[in-house]
């Protein structure tokens, strides 16, 4: 998975560089760093009540094309490496001689999302330019190869909705701070369970984490707070 992220990151940033060098005024590229707070039911967060404090670093890249003065459409891609929480899965039950032992097991997971989106700048004057954005695409997760003993991945639909502000630094260059809700459809956290069914603890069910019983909503909300560096080649706008 490390290789995937590495290549994807290079591709994204390389693509951004290429766009920056080739487009003349219509394209805007925004690499960003972010913190992702996954939905509490995904097993990528913590089981703490309220807003989870478990945050993961995230890298993203948006490339949008200005179709009107206030409207841009384009592509987005992002990714990170996170660790599942053992608090959502039955413990592993191992037999050692005449004894049982329970183990909490987690795994590293590589997460990607990608799709197409649109951004609408709100008509406010000055250096700060608020905007709203939306889009749809897919999310793809790669479980740990050694833990899952396979190279399988699984994907699902994603909807994005968010907004932020842009602060122009100079011609064609701006800082962007936005918050986006990436909504994953029908996400099944059981696919991230690193323990094979034969080793899952069904003998001491009362000892399993409470998160095992947590619901699985049809739409999970994953909030991303991103700081981006937007630039428009050839000073085509801010």
């Amino acid at each position: 998975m490390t290789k995937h992220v590495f290549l994807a990151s290079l591709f994204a940033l390389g693509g951004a560089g290429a766009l920056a060098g080739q487009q003349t005024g219509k394209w805007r590229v925004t690499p960003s760093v972010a913190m992702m707070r996954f939905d509490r039911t995904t097993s990528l967060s913590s089981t703490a009540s309220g807003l989870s404090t478990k945050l993961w670093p995230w890298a993203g890249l948006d490339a949008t094309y200005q179709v009107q003065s206030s409207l841009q459409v384009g592509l987005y891609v992002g990714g990170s490496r996170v660790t599942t929480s053992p608090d959502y899965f039955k413990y592993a039950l191992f037999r050692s001689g005449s004894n049982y032992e329970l183990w909490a097991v987690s795994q590293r997971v590589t997460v990607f999302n990608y799709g197409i989106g649109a951004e609408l700048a709100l008509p406010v004057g000055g250096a700060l330019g608020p905007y709203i954005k939306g889009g749809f695409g897919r999310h793809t997760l790669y479980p740990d190869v050694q833990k899952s003993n396979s190279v399988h991945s699984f994907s699902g639909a994603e909807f994005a909705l968010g907004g932020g502000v842009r602060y122009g630094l100079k011609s064609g260059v701006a800082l962007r701070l936005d918050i986006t809700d990436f909504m994953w459809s029908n996400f099944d956290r059981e696919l991230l369970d690193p323990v094979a069914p034969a080793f899952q603890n069904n003998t001491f069910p009362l000892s399993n984490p409470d998160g095992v019983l947590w619901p699985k909503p049809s739409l999970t909300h994953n909030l991303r707070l991103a700081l981006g560096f937007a630039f428009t080649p050839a000073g085509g706008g801010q």
Partner: protein
Amino acid sequence: MRLQRLVISWGALAAFAVACTHDDPVTTPVSQNGEDTIAIITLSATPAGFLNGTQSVTYIASGPFDTSVADAFARATTNPPFLMPDPTGCYGSQPLIFEAGNAPVPYTPPNAFLPALVSGTAIGDAGCGGPTTYIVRAGHPGNGTGNRVWEFWHYVTGTTDPLRYVSGLARYAVVQRGALDGPDVLLNGSVTSPDSLVLYPNTSVLGGKKSDAVFTTNCGSVNVIQAKAGFNPYMLGGGASSGGAVQMDQTVCDTDGVWVDGSYAGNKSPIPANNNTAFSAVQYNFFVVWEALADSTPNYARPVFRVQIGPLLNASGTVVNNSYAPTPTTQLSGALLGPLPGSTSSVDSVKATFNLLKPLSSGAYQVWVTNTAGTNTGRLTGRVIRLSNGVAKDTVASAGEFNLIAGQNGARFEGALGTLGSQTWNRVVLVVQPTSGATTIPTQPSEPLWGKITNPKPSGAAAVLSGSLKFGSFDNGAADSMVYGAGGSGTGGFFGTQLVQALSRLSRPPLGYQYEAWLTNSTDTSVHVNAGGLNGPAPDYVSLKDADVMTTPPLSGVEITEATFATDPGTYAAWCKIGTIVGTPPDTSIKPIYDQLQIRLGPKGGNPAILSPTIALSAPLGVPMGAAHNKGKCAP
């Protein structure tokens, strides 16, 4: 552009750093109450203590008696009649043929058949203290070890002096007039038209001897008779009446191996089997004493003593059905006729014994009868004898229901069908009623014990007078009626202060019964504690108290596919009573109380403090890790 390149460069570097981060996923041992190791306790099926019982019924004749049924009166026997130890003790304890049975002196045999017995004679006592009517086989220790003589000893009183009398074995065929005399007596108490006895074959060829009878065990003596085949009658000596009595004690030696059998009723015994076995040439069905003619041959028209010792023959020499010895003398009552093969009869009363019951906190035990389809039911009223391990403790008369008290674990019920007898009942059933005084059987009743009874009994069928009871869910004989069998398994252990078992494939409990977990002591049955009931699997942990009637998971057909049991006293001190606290050296100051975990079956209304008797699964408890590590909390 420099700024753009700078940002892109740092962005690429950051992505590279994230992509290359690597650490092993977290794998953490889980502990509970400070313990992370669980000593495994494995439950396995150890069926024991199942409810059980027996039932028996009495029949009463309720229809015509069919004498065409083979051995309709169940009187055929392999051995001859009157085979018994000598009641006087003269011949010791080994059985011999004592024709008077247990009758006192003087003994008069039944005067059946024609020619009729000359009146006035009887069997007297020749010295042993009872009627002298002996047929003693060869080799009988009463005549000395190793002897080869059959002895025939009779003492007839009321004889006429100085008339001579002779005795012998006779093979008679019957000339039947109307109903056969024997069945006539058994059914009606009297003979309408007496049958006659004629020798078979009908040409008399005397064997044996006509001279005075002499007892000797010396086979070389001229006084002994040498056994021969092919004679009828076979004379066994005689004597002249003196003082109104004549004694004939004659021995027959088996020198030539003709009467070789050392047993009675064998093929070479002069006494036939008392059943349909064809006679051999040496076998006879009567012992007779006649008045003698002048030439000492029998006066066949004047027998003075005649005892049937084998079945009658017909004119073809074949054994006649229902003509077995001894000659019947009294009419059979309806109750005695009821169970006989020739009888059409109905069940008259029921006795049932129920073992390993449990005292009920609510409800009552009742005894019911049902028909085959379960559509008709009737509650019995009768005497209840309450038992403790089979020993009667007290009796309740005319009880329609009963309960037990602590220390009692069974009951014997005895009741007549009475007015219920008009129905056709085919099962006797123990019903555990949820409420005392119930007069109807509820839907899906708790009927843990039941037995089949044949009612009515048709002629030609053997009566089944008793049988064992089945344990399970009778449900009035419905399609889901099933016999209970313990099955399933479980695994788990002590995790911290929690005792847990995950069970699979338990048999569905009988209707009205539930599974209970008990901690017990393998050597002291008085030590036990109810640890609670079972639940279904996570996440719902549905109570399995009603697993007997549930139709939703984890119930599937006749099984509970998954179940759990968990109990947690919350402190290690509570576990000090479990297992042996071991160490180096072993700490024997703390004595375990409970050393077994058992899954038992108990009635839902059972007293929860009294140990349920039926064991489905059990396992040794072993040593709780937490208790071992926290033994300081245990009081010695």
